[in-house]
């Protein structure tokens, strides 16, 4: 039950909590004041009632005196005025008797009232008889009645005065009791107010603590986060669904998602770094290649110059074959180095001729190379450079190198429809069909 209430309270919006707190305390003050005021009011009323009885009795006594005196006056003077006075007094007295207690009770004061009432009734009968006897001039009777009524009159007076005194004593006691109660009320009010103030203060502290506690926890966690201790920053407990609760939830979510973001950021940065490194490495490679390229360019020139110098030396010494050989070697390398992106078939065939010349010097003219060119115009066709020489080289290396018979290589150029066909054949060892298939398959795969 208490938990449920706590939960309900925790889920209230803060502004509602504060309104409830202030309203509650105001209401409390109001209730306490109303109670005090009500008590005081009761006392005041009671105080007012205290002397009402005495006043009524005094009026009754005055009225009784009037009846008695007017009767006596009538007996003395027999005047109409006094008779009127008597009747008026009797009427007034009768009126005052109405409302008086006439039953026997266990209350002594009420009992006295009852006796006053009954004696008064008898007294009024007697006075009426007295007046009647006087009017009838019955001297003996009216004297007797008068004596009797006077006696009862004195009794009633005694009773009234006794009742008055008893009431006064009771009133004094009541007054004393009330006065002491009022004094007590003062003390009680102070105590009640002190307790109420203490209660209100502790209630305010409790509620404000209840409100600020989650904020403190939140700020503590925020401090940790700002100090960079993301991992050790605790999940702040959500106490309720009030404003602080909403903020706390958002904070918790933020704290839990920050490490993810950071990791992704880190990864991204690492990748970027890696890319940069690669770029630099590639640049370095490029530079290196360029350098090598330049170096490569430098060496052939030196080689050509050297070869040229050699050929010139051979020519000066009239060694024609050496001159031709060196010229061939120089031509072969020049073709290799020159940018031969697109050359004519004629150029290619010339390079093959140069290559065969060089080989024949090396291998003492063992290679018999024949060209079968169908039409000279076919030689003007353009094609990528350096494609014929390697094929011929393969024929030498894998076809005829180690054969015991005379090795022959034939190069044919012929036209088929609009196409120019170039064929290189040799009488070497040849190739098994499986190997051919394997090579071709590998070539396809590669392609």
């Amino acid at each position, binding site marked *: 039950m208490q938990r449920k209430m706590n939960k309900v309270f925790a889920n209230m919006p803060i502004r509602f909590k504060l309104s409830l707190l202030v309203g509650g305390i105001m209401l409390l003050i109001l209730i306490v004041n109303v109670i005090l005021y009500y008590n005081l009011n009761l006392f005041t009323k*009671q105080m007012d009632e205290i002397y009402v009885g005495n006043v009524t009795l005094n009026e009754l006594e005055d009225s009784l005196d009037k009846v008695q005196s007017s009767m006596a006056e009538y007996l003395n003077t027999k005047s109409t005025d006094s008779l009127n006075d008597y009747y008026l007094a009797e009427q007034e007295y009768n009126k005052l008797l109405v409302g008086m207690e006439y039953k026997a009770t266990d209350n002594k004061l009420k009992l006295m009232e*009852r006796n006053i009432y*009954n004696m008064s009734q*008898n007294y009024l009968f007697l006075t009426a008889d007295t007046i009647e006897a006087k009017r009838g001039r019955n001297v003996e009777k009216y004297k007797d009645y008068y004596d009797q009524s006077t006696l009862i009159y004195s009794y009633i007076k005694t009773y009234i005065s006794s009742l008055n005194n008893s009431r006064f004593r009771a009133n004094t006691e009541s007054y004393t009791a009330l006065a002491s*109660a009022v004094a007590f009320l003062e003390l009680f009010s102070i105590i009640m107010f002190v307790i109420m103030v203490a209660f209100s203060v502790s209630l305010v502290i*409790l509620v404000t603590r209840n409100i600020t506690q989650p904020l403190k926890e939140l700020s503590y966690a925020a401090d940790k986060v700002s100090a960079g201790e993301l991992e050790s920053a605790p999940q702040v407990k959500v106490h309720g669904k009030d404003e602080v609760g909403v903020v706390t939830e958002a904070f918790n979510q933020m704290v839990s998602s920050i490490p993810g973001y950071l990791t992704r950021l880190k990864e991204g940065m690492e990748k970027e770094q890696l890319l940069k490194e690669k770029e630099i490495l590639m640049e370095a490679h490029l530079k290196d290649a360029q350098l090598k390229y330049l170096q490569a360019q430098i060496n052939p020139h030196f080689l050509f110059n050297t070869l040229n110098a050699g050929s010139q030396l051979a020519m000066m010494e009239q060694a024609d074959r050496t001159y031709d050989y060196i010229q061939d070697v120089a031509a072969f390398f020049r073709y290799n180095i020159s940018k031969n992106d697109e050359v004519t078939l004629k150029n290619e065939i010339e390079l093959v001729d140069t290559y065969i010349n060089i080989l024949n010097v090396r291998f003492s003219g063992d290679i018999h190379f024949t060209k079968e060119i169908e039409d000279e115009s076919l030689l003007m066709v353009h094609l990528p450079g350096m494609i014929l020489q390697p094929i011929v080289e393969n024929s030498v290396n894998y076809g005829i190198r180690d054969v015991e018979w005379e090795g022959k290589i034939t190069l044919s150029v012929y036209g088929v429809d609009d196409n120019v066909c170039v064929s290189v054949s040799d009488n070497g060892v040849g190739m098994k069909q499986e190997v051919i298939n394997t090579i071709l398959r590998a070539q396809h795969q590669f392609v």
Partner: protein
Amino acid sequence: MDKKEKKGNKKILIATVVLGTLLIFTVAFSIVFFFMRIKSTQSLLDTGDIKTYDNYYVMITDERDTDFWRSVYAGAQEEAEANNAYIELLGEDLDADLSKQDLLRIAISSDVDGIILDGDESDETVELIQKATDEGIPVVTISDDMTDSKRVSYIGVSSYNLGKEYGEQLAAYVKENGISDCDVLVLMDESLNSNSQSIIFTAINEAIEKRNLSDVISLNSQIVNSNKDYAAEEEIRDIFVGEDAKDIPDVIICLSETNTTCVYQTVVDYNKVGEVEIFGYYISPTIRSAIEKDIIKSSIVVDTNQMGKKSVEAVNEYKQSGYVSEIYIIDTQLATKETLDSFSGEGGDGDAKKDE
């Protein structure tokens, strides 16, 4: 920090709960307290709960302040309450000291439902009883009878029995102590009617004669005026120190509580303890202590409670049936030092009022 804070929160929570509870209790207490105060003042002001009764009786006596009459009244109250009637000891709440006759007149003109009267010999009282009876108010005499009046019943002690009891006590005392000459004074209370006085005296005499002690005991009587204020004390004192005080009696028989107390006090005051033996009437704290000290030899105790009850019973019976037994005799008991314990519950003292 968290733990400390939690602890603080718990303390404040406890304080708040305690203060809240205290506040609720204070407020509740203040409301209850003030209502109780208001109620108590209301009862002082007669505005509280009042019980009404079917019948209203009055008890009239001149000696309403004595414990004897208080005890009688208490008995009457018990009986009245049981019969839904209220009985008032008339005159006790009045400021003026009115005579028995005045009170009777008040009772009659107040239209009471019944009168219980301590009888006397006055003709005026007889007349007033007549008047009351004429007005339909039954009058029951109590303690002292008025045989000549129109009272419907009498409740009291038999004077003859009372006298006989005293006589026997006296005789026993004389014999026991081997006294050869005993001067006895019987103090008659003036409130007793002469008839009762003579019956008591005769009964004492008879008892003495029966035991053949007439020669040894010389019996005298003296009437003590109890109606005048302080008169009894003066007159009793005169017995010891007055002009006629030469012959101080050996034994004094008292027929009222007042006389018993007066004689006891005088005997003590004049250092006559041991010289004068006292036979008292009724038992009050003073008389009880005197019996314990052996200053009073014995005392005759009337069942006052029964007397009160019977008186109301008689009025009720008369009102209901129109008839009631003329006399109810109330039991008496003798209180001596030995039997004192059995009277522990006895309330008042009283007057030895007797009838024939």
